[in-house]
């Protein structure tokens, strides 16, 4: 047996059985390559790395869980009055105190959160979806169709949305459903216009033309090529539309057209609280606190989502790690 020296090490240059076995199947080799990184798992990973995203998501989760479970497990009904316990300050029995007819504020606040979240999410989502569909048709088809749709939008945007909402609520009465209908009918124009603009922006980009040359149908082009490019903005838009819908509900409740008692919402509760906040501060403080937390968390989450949706930031994560390692190494030396 002959040994050869290479790079200061001895190598055996005799051939073994193994050297004559066939190279493994190509498919097996391919599996050893870095796993295919799909876009969405990647987004999730980036989102979970962001402390602000975790914090806002936690706040949102806590509020949502409380809104679901507090009314179920509370010993008090949200609409049961008890005059013996009226106008109480926060205590162990009533953590958020009671109102002037002795209803437990803790239960009422979270029933109100339920209503507000429902109206916020559905009332933001429905006009968004309507607007997106109309905007996509308008932008993609173009020509006369686009002209007609956009003029309709212009005319509808000229009329203050408050007028539609008041009109619809007067006709349908104050209930969550009529609030959502009112929000949908008064809110789709803005997102239609925005989405149309986005479609126009991408319609003649070269990668969209390339997909067309490959024989892709419009549905595929919009969903696979245009939508991912604008999803970040849409998510942020949606996250800020939810607080908008919650505020709209609160405003309607303030002028007595929103949710009518004994049903309640955060807007209605804080409106009630404003009247008495000099004497019964807790009645104003707790609903407002929940609204503020909810809206702040939604905004922050929207921002983090936008960052996570952008694959260009992947490199920045990596660079940050490299720099940190360099700094550590520097300190040692």
């Amino acid at each position, binding site marked *: 047996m002959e040994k050869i020296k290479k790079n200061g090490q001895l190598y055996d240059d005799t051939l073994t059985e193994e050297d004559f076995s066939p190279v493994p199947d*190509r*498919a097996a080799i*391919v599996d050893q*390559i*870095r*796993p*295919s*990184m799909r*876009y969405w798992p990647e987004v999730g990973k980036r989102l979970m790395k962001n402390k602000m995203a975790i914090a806002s998501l936690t706040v949102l989760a806590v509020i949502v869980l409380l809104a679901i479970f507090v009314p179920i497990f509370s010993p008090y009904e949200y609409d049961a009055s008890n005059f013996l316990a009226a106008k109480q300050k926060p205590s162990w029995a009533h953590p958020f105190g009671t109102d002037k007819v002795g209803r437990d504020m803790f239960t009422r606040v979270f029933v109100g959160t339920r209503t507000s979240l429902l109206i916020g999410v559905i009332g933001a989502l429905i006009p968004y979806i309507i607007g997106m569909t109309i905007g996509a048709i308008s932008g993609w088809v173009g020509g006369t169709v686009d002209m007609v749709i956009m003029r309709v939008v212009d005319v509808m945007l000229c009329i203050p949305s408050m007028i539609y909402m008041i009109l619809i609520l007067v006709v349908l009465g104050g209930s969550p459903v009529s609030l959502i209908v009112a929000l949908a009918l008064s809110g789709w124009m803005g997102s239609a216009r925005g989405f149309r603009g986005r479609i126009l922006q991408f319609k003649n*980009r*070269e*990668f969209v*033309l*390339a*997909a*067309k*040359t*490959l*024989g*892709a149908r419009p549905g*595929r082009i919009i969903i*696979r*090529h245009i939508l*991912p*490019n604008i999803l970040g903005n849409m998510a942020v838009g949606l996250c800020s539309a939810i607080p908008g819908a919650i505020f709209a509900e609160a405003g309607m409740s303030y002028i007595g057209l929103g949710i009518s008692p004994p049903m309640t919402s955060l807007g209605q509760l804080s409106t009630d609280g404003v009247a008495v906040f000099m004497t019964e501060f807790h009645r104003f403080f707790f609903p407002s606190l929940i609204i503020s937390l909810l809206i702040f968390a939604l905004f922050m989450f929207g921002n983090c989502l936008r960052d996570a949706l952008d*694959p*260009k930031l*992947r*490199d920045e994560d990596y660079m940050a790690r490299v720099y940190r390692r360099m700094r550590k190494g520097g300190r040692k030396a």
Partner: protein
Amino acid sequence: MAGEYLLQVEGLKKYFNLGKGRILHAVDDVSFAVRPGETLGLVGESGCGKTTVGRTLLKLYKPDGGRIIYRDEDVTHVPARRQRELCCKMQMIYQDPYASLNPFMTIGEIVSEGLEINKIGKDRAERQMMTYDLLEMVGLTKEHANRFPHEFSGGQRQRAGIARALAVNPEFVVCDEAISALDVSVQAQIINMLLDLREKMNLTYLFIAHDLSVVRYISQRVAVMYLGKIVEIGSAAEVYAHPAHPYTQGLLNAVPVADPEFEKSKQYKAMTGEVSSPINCKPGCRFASRCPRATEKCRTEDPLMKQVGPDHFVACHHL
């Protein structure tokens, strides 16, 4: 005539309506033919309608007149289904490697999209294999398949764009200024690769460019465009050796030569004037406003294509 040409274009017109009665004549009565396996270079200055010709051929724009005949089949106006089938025959390599790849898709997804849409390959695994082969064919590796376009250089992106176009196994490829966005050393690599692929895959190119030396290198035949019309068309050797149209002469004169002695001796006559507007064109030769030999006839009458040599046609009244 039948069967001799892969693609024939007869009197192709594409106008854009700018509103208020203004019509932009982007492509105005353009005719040419491409034989299988040859490369036709299409040159001309910016805004002369080269790209519009390419895009109209692939029906990204609806032609406003004329006929496009592909393998003896009139494909000017075909139903959407046939058009999708034609996608596998005629492809396009785009100009800007930064804009032509979707930033939200990996290179692998981009390259395999054509396979997926046209149902080439029986399942995902097979398509993946085909994608890897395509990437290797254009000088990338399979490790690149999982990366996003922003992780690549311009040349690598252009390679991915070429792989995407070749995925559907086309016969005819429009290279729409496929190399003008790259720097010179990368240009050379890509051109040589395109030449190799032409041999290997039996491709026919319509090579759109404004760099005359590149076109001379890659093309067998050359067409010169000016303001939406072809002014001169012929074999590359003929057009470069004996340019007959005053515009072609001016264009070739303007090419700098890396020899100061030659440059000094060259009787350089810069073209004067500006390109006239392609909006609401008047009849007459499009080049008349800048042509040193323009006469009254040039300003009123459209010149017709005249044969001036073997496989050499020029549209000028003075020949």
